[in-house]
């Protein structure tokens, strides 16, 4: 599955995560900015990787700005961004 466009999901409000996904040619790249990067950075990226794999996406650039989102919100936002980019 290839991304057709750049898409955004989520907001900069507390407990949310804003995710920008865009097409690229370099595989899966994730740039994460989060106050809890040290403790949870890997977990956050793992959630995103899982959703990317589920949709059979091999190339995507992701820019994520985290405001303390819990797992369910990260999952929902990445799903939304990817769906918006694929349609």
């Amino acid at each position, binding site marked *: 599955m290839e991304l057709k466009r750049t898409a955004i*999901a*989520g907001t900069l*409000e*507390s*407990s*949310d995560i804003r995710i920008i996904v865009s097409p690229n040619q370099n595989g899966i790249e994730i740039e994460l900015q989060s106050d809890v990067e040290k403790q949870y950075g890997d977990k956050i990226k793992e959630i995103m990787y899982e959703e990317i794999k589920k949709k059979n996406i091999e190339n995507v650039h992701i820019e994520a700005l985290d405001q303390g*989102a*819990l*797992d*369910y*919100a990260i*999952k*929902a*936002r990445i*799903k*939304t961004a990817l*769906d*918006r980019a694929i349609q």
Partner: protein
Amino acid sequence: MGKNSLRRSMLYIPGNNPGMIQDANIYGADSILLDLEDSVVVSEKDAARKLVSEALREIDFSNLEITVRINPLTTEFGQKDLEVVVPSQPDALRLPKTENAKEVKEVDKLLSKIEKNNNLEIGRIEIMPMLETALGVLNAYEIATSSERVSALTIGGEDLTADLGVKRTASGEEIFTARSSIVLAATAAGVDALDTIYSKVDDIEGLIEETKFIKQLGFSGKAVIHPKQIKAVHQVFTPTEEEISESKKIIKEAEKAESEGLGVITVNGKMVDGPIIDRARKILNYSKQL
């Protein structure tokens, strides 16, 4: 949670707001309304339904009844809301602007289909139609009895007054008949009647007055839009110590009379018959749940 759940308060939560969704269970409401309709802009409908769906799967809402207000099936969003949210098993769905039994039956059918496709218990998710138009109110009884899933009728005051072409007032005379009609229909159908929101969030006195009034009309709960409204609403709907002890007295006398083969009983010098005994029983059941 089922048809006999305590529904004194239903707290509206905008479905696209993770901060509010995940805090929903700390406010003490009896029930939560995760909203995909009026509080979510069109461009975010897709995001909100995914957020609500994931929240339902992961967050432990413990004893809270979780209801999702989907968009009407007449819009492009309603069907997708069902497809995404139903597999995550909310306790109930609120259907906005319901106008007739046919609409409810359609949702019932779709729900059963999605439940079947997802190996879920068929029929478990309840439906709470919102009556927000003149036609909806007039069709209240047929709507209330349209499906086994219907567990409550609710009124949407803001939209109803818009339909009537009048302003919503504190005294509420413009929706008085609608409120009563809905209580009558709900009672005849054996389902709950739940009242509309009180929009002046800072006016707790006004909220208490309105809640007392609608309780007297026969509503068993009220929707709220801010956590600070919950305590006041609960206070109005909670039986007093006096009501509870009188109810215990009545039940005791009624059981005694039954065992002695007596028909009519008196408690505190007042004649007490069937309906009064039923009400006493309801109060005791209610207080047991608190």
